[in-house]
């Protein structure tokens, strides 16, 4: 027959969950119940044997050595972690700088698909001896309508824009519609100026802090 006390109270007794009153009752019952008495006795033996298993103690010199070694290892690991973190931060920063430089170079060199190279249409032969008046057609294509863009032309020696003969640089603000925009520049070439393959007009289109530069190459004729 299974003792009810044993079923309900023995585990609580082992786990020290019985209050003072309940503990006293259980111990009184155990004195009269063979099952509970045997269980209690076995548990006491078990605890006694367990507590016979004395702790080992650490000598003071061993404890000091343990602590010293642990401190040194912890310091080395911290330093190693700092070095690794600094290295990774340096790599990340270098990567960001390189990307910025590359992207900036690519943008300024005109490799962005949003900007297309201008189409240059030139008029025919240019006599060498006299001042030449010739219209230069410049086609500028933009992907979207922009207002307030600035156009600037840097003119080579001997080449000027009619009406702006005294200026080597002509700049003005303009609006550009989406698609192709044709600009006609009436150029005046001074007498005696020989045009060759290196005669270029440098132009810059600026819009909201972004710049697009392009070069207009003046054609070289075979006359004269």
């Amino acid at each position, binding site marked *: 027959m299974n003792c009810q006390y044993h079923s309900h109270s023995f*585990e609580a007794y*082992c*786990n*020290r*969950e019985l209050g003072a009153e309940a503990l006293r009752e259980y111990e009184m019952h155990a004195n009269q119940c063979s099952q509970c008495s045997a269980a209690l006795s*076995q*548990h006491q*033996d*078990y*605890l*006694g*044997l*367990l*507590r*016979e*298993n*004395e*702790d*080992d*103690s*650490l*000598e*003071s010199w*061993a*404890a*000091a050595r*343990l*602590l010293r*070694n*642990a*401190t040194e*290892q*912890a310091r080395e*690991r*911290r330093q190693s972690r700092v070095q690794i973190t600094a290295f990774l931060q340096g790599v990340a920063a270098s990567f960001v700088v390189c990307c910025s430089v590359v992207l900036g170079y690519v943008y300024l060199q005109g490799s962005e698909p949003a900007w297309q190279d201008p189409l240059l249409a030139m008029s025919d032969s240019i006599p060498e001896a006299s001042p030449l008046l010739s219209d230069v057609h410049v086609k500028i294509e933009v992907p979207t309508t922009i207002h307030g863009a600035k156009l600037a032309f840097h003119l080579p020696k001997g080449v000027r824009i009619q009406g702006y003969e005294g200026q080597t640089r002509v700049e003005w603000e303009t609006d550009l519609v989406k698609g192709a925009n044709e600009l006609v520049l009436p150029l005046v070439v001074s007498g005696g100026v020989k045009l060759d393959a290196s005669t270029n007009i440098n132009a810059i289109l600026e819009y909201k802090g972004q710049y697009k530069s392009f070069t207009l190459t003046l054609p070289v004729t075979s006359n004269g």
Partner: protein
Amino acid sequence: MKKISNIFVRHREETVESVVSPHLDALYAQAFQYTGDRDSAQDLLQDMLVNILQDEGKVLKLDPVKPWLMRCLYNRFIDHCRKAGREVDARTEIELDQLEGSERGPESKYYHGQVVKSLSCLTPDQRVAVVLFDLKGHSLEEVSNVMGVPTGTVKSHLHRARKRLKEKLSVQPFRPKERYKE
């Protein structure tokens, strides 16, 4: 221990050591009960110290610090067991010489070896529960905090561990009470 804690009073970097060193004895005793031999206990304790000393700020903020240290030791013990991939009955031979540092008679050493062998047959969680509750006398709540599990789980560990230990230890030739009479 007092001499060690006095050494670490002066320097800022060694303040953490002065906080930890008073508990080294108790922590080592626990580690010894967990692992069953001196070398493993020292390894376990050193491993735990290396980890906690990397975060000095956290250690200095704790009050009290001992429950946290006990929790760290328990976690390191579980990690060690997992890495070692220990089976429950892995220990068959125990070198009695390495089991304790104090002098014992042959019979005492025998029992000590039997207890250690029996403890090593428990799972790590069962072993920790028995060491902390039955051996060291901590309360269920304290053991629950160290192990990071509910008290119900602690009781379950205790129940299974005791059953297994009592079966193993009950076959011993001499009862402790009889030895006490000697």
